[in-house]
């Protein structure tokens, strides 16, 4: 269905770190380490629960200051692939604090961007250093609702442009 249609809908970042793969693996899979780097400036990660095995669940809370006061955002997901020190794949969806994914809308639009996204991390040992490739992509092609939010929004934007609003 949406096979091969995710390229525009993904961010790929390649980085090298001056640390061995097992340490980078811990950065992603041990809450204490994960919390230390995952919140960009201004955001903290008060909660990170990680059951790192295929089918295991994860729950992460990010808290950020906004003009209207602190806002907490919860993200739940599931581990899809776990190959220690080499490859980690998990999904992520906006959720409530108990990990219940926000329900799909009952009308109007397909699943919104808190729709499911997927994060894949690949680690490669370069003589004690690590090459890491992180791919954050739109909802995986095999998931229900794959047609997705991004597509609906581009349609919406196109329609708006066609109407010449603004």
């Amino acid at each position, binding site marked *: 269905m949406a096979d091969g249609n995710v390229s*525009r809908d993904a961010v790929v970042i390649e980085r090298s770190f001056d640390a061995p793969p097992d340490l980078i693996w811990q950065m992603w899979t041990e809450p204490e380490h994960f919390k230390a780097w995952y919140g*960009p*400036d201004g955001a903290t990660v008060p909660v990170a629960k990680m059951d790192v095995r295929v089918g295991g669940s994860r729950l992460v809370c990010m808290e950020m200051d906004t003009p209207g006061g602190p806002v907490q955002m919860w993200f739940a997901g599931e581990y899809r692939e776990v190959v220690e020190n080499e490859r980690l794949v998990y999904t992520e969806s906006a959720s409530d604090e108990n990990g219940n994914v926000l329900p799909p809308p009952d009308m109007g639009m397909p699943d919104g*961007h808190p729709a499911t996204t997927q994060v894949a991390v690949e680690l490669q040992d370069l003589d004690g250093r690590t090459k890491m490739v992180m791919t954050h992509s739109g909802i995986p092609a095999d998931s229900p609702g794959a047609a997705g939010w*991004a597509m609906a929004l581009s349609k919406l*934007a196109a329609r*708006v442009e066609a109407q010449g609003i603004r």
Partner: protein
Amino acid sequence: MTFVIDEDRLSETFAALASSTRRAILARLAEGEANVNELAEPFDLTLPAISKHIKVLQRAGLVVRGQRAQYRPCALDPARLEEISAWAEQYRPVWEARFDQMDGYLMQLRSQRKTGEHDG
């Protein structure tokens, strides 16, 4: 520190989108501008409740309200929509910032290991 701005804007926008009612309002506005009464029609919600949703969408930059007459019609702001439809690129600076932090944290860990328990 542009990524800070991006992160805030993005989180605000995503927070605004995390509601099926608000997404349905956006879908309705994609068909043309509408006032609060018209927007309230398909919902089992009071006008003040709808107004609240619209305010959230306005704060997130997704909806603008005209000054025309007393109706003050709502319309989509396509600029923000385009930004959001390219959400992946919006995320890039966020991830870059995270990995900068990971780098810094790794260095911190390494110097802690070198100096043992000494915490300067």
